[in-house]
Structure formats: C-alpha cells, structure tokens
C-alpha cells in the first residue's frame, strides 16, 4: 500500500477519462500529467479543462494524472469535480 493520499474518479472506458489526484510533486504548484488517445488534437483543451477545475475547487497543490479515452469537456469537468471533492474528504 502506498500510504499516499490519493483519490480516483472516472473510468478507462471509451468517451471517459480517469482522474487520479495526489499531493503535488513540486512545492508551490500544481502538476498535471495527461495521457490521451487524442493528445495531438485536443491535448491543450484537456489541460485547460483540468486547470479550470483546479481553480474552481481549491484543494491546495496537487498532482493530476489523467488517462483520457476521448472524453468530452463536460465529462472531464465532472470527473475532475468528483476526484477533487473525494480528495478533499480524505484525511491527510
């Protein structure tokens, strides 16, 4: 068991995205790692949607790991919201 505070939302199914939230790797900033089947066309849009959610839900500095399987923007935001709220509820 890793013992690191981590929250997950979403799935690896088509048209979905799996978001994993854990403490940031670099002090004083959020870190984001995205892997997507449509990285070339939509990579920047996916990162923008993730950053939007991070500003909306204050959870301190975190690392976001996103495995995207072609999710729409609304799906990305919904998964981000669920993952961040779950992360907030975890004991640190």
């Amino acid at each position, binding site marked *: *068991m*890793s*013992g*690191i505070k*981590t*929250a*997950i939302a*979403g*799935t*690896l*199914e*088509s048209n*979905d995205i*799996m978001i*994993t939230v*854990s403490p940031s790797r670099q002090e004083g900033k959020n870190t984001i790692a995205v*892997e997507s089947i449509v990285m070339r066309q939509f990579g920047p849009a996916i990162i923008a949607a993730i950053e939007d959610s991070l500003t909306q839900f204050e959870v301190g500095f975190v690392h976001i*790991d996103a*495995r995207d*399987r072609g999710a729409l923007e609304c799906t990305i935001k919904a998964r981000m919201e669920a993952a961040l709220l779950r992360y907030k509820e975890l004991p640190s």
Partner: protein
Amino acid sequence: MQEFREIITRRDHAEARELLRAAGLDAPEGAAFGLGCYEDGFLGGVGFLAGNILCGICIHPSRRGAGLAAGIVSRLIQHAAAQGRHKLLLFTSAAEMPKFQEIGLKLVAQSPHAALLEFGQPDCAAWLEDMRGVLQEQRQAMPTAAYGQTGAIVMNANPFTLGHLHLVRAALQRCVYLCVFVVEEDASVFPFDVRLALVRQGLGQEPRAIVLPAGPYMVSRASFPSYFTGKTAHSRIHAELDSTIFAVRIAKVLDIGVRFVGQEPSCEVTARYNAALKEILPQHGVVCVEIERLSSDTHAISASRVRELLAGPDADLARDDLRKLVPETTLGFVQSDAMLGIRNALRKHQNIY
C-alpha cells in the same frame, strides 16, 4: 442490460472458472476479489484483484472488442483505491499486452512470452529514481573513493545464513559496490523486516555492500509468481520476464553491470531462474556470474536446512549444527524469544517456504 457486479455465489464462480478455462487461463488462487460483467444474465467478461495484482482478466470470445475489459479494469482500480491501494500490477502474455496498454496501463517491460504492466504511483520510473537517490547517497558515504563497477544480488534470506555471507563476499571480490536486494514480498516464514534486519546485521562488516529492499519489480508476486507458488509449470516464462525487467529497467537506471547468483542444487524453480538470468542478462549488456555454494561438511548450506533445524526441538538450537550454518547475528536472533512465533509456524507447516 449491462451490469458489473462482484462474483459471489458458487454458480458465479463456476461460470467464471469455465470462461477462464476456455481461454486457457487458471482461476486466481487465494482470496481474490472477482468482478463480472453480466449482460442480461450472460457473463461477458471477468477480472480479479488479489492484493495489488490485477489477474484473470478474460472476455468471452463473442464479446471481445466491445470495451468490456476497460470497464472491468476501471472498476477493479476503483475497488483497489477504496481499500487504499493505488499502485497495481498486471502480468499478462506478450500477445495480450497491447490491449492493456491501449486501455491505459503502462508497460514495465516485456519478454518474448510475457509482459508486466502497471497503473498508479509510484510507477517503475519513480521507484527507480528513488532507489538511485538512496544508492548515490550510500556510495558517497563510503570510504572507497574509486569509481568502479556496481554489482547486484537478489536474495530472500529466509533467514540470512553463512551461505549468503559467502556469496556476498565472493561477489565483492568482483565489483566495487554491491547492491544486496532483499525480496520484499511477505510470503516467507521470516517476515520482511526481520529478513532485512538480519541481512543488514550480517553484512555490518562489509561496508561496500549496500542492503536495499527489492521492491515490486524483483522476484515479487507480480514479476515472478511461480517463485511463491513453487509450481514449475510457468516458471520459465516468469523467470524470463523477471530477468528482462532487471536488465532493461533496473540495471540500466541503477548502473548495475553484473548480477551474481548462488548456484542452486535443489530448488527447481530457482535453478530455472538462474538459467534464465544467464541467458537474458548478457543480451542486454549485463554480466551474470554464478557463484558456487559454500558447504558445511558434506551438505550445502541452505536456509531451508536452517528452517528444518528451527522446526525441531529446542535442544537443537544449542547444537553446533546451527552454528555451522548461520552467522552470530542470525544465531542471536533465532535463539531469542522473538523467534517463538516463527518457530511455531515452522512446526505447524512442515514444508512452509
């Protein structure tokens, strides 16, 4: 209607076993969490989670290509996360590997027949970075200023014997630094922390030997399942994969040029492992050196012989036999009260590994 639910009833299990059997897979052993994808009552696919290992993921031939595997793996990941497990490993055949990679699992390494994939953090790259940091620190703290080849040994040390000490000393003659990796999987009668402590104490006089936990990528339940079940059926395939991971990931990042193994006269799985290491490591530029075992009188010194003695009556502990097999440090521990639990376990299961 499609529904993902736990495989619970006897009928569910029989159905799942049948699906696996038809695909040439064994049902997972031990207590595993099983998940089925049911479509109007028809079992379209199954998958299991045993500890931090994803296994037995199998889709009915008529339902392949419909994304069922992604659904099953996702839910197993969520189930594991709810239990606080965020780092998962999957062992599969080389032919199936691309499908799992496509789903979003990351490849650790692949051999001609098998592959190991992972999900979550710390992944292999992060773990190796950590190990490299620890190693670097230890090397700098050492009296030898000379730069030279780093070697490695992986041992279970259940418990640490004079045979292990001999192996380390022989290896140290052939390299400047020696990483001694202690198998981390807690499947042996001596718990991991005890095994690690006894190796550290036993090598206290050998400053060039650096004792480290072997982590999840060296002789673990994921990289080398048959080492723990003792079954020889797939041991060659497992041994090849473990050797490949060592060569292409571990040796590369930790700058290890030579791997030492102790000659294995009795255990078939270990003998096959040695053979695989000798064949595969040189293909990737890592030398593999087999060192002859140390014998006491006529018997080879082995940890299994030590365990046999420990399972016997208390009087055996004072006998000279044991003294010929283990160093003072291990002897002190096995004669202490801390051993009572371990000795009882040994007596209960005569053949415990």
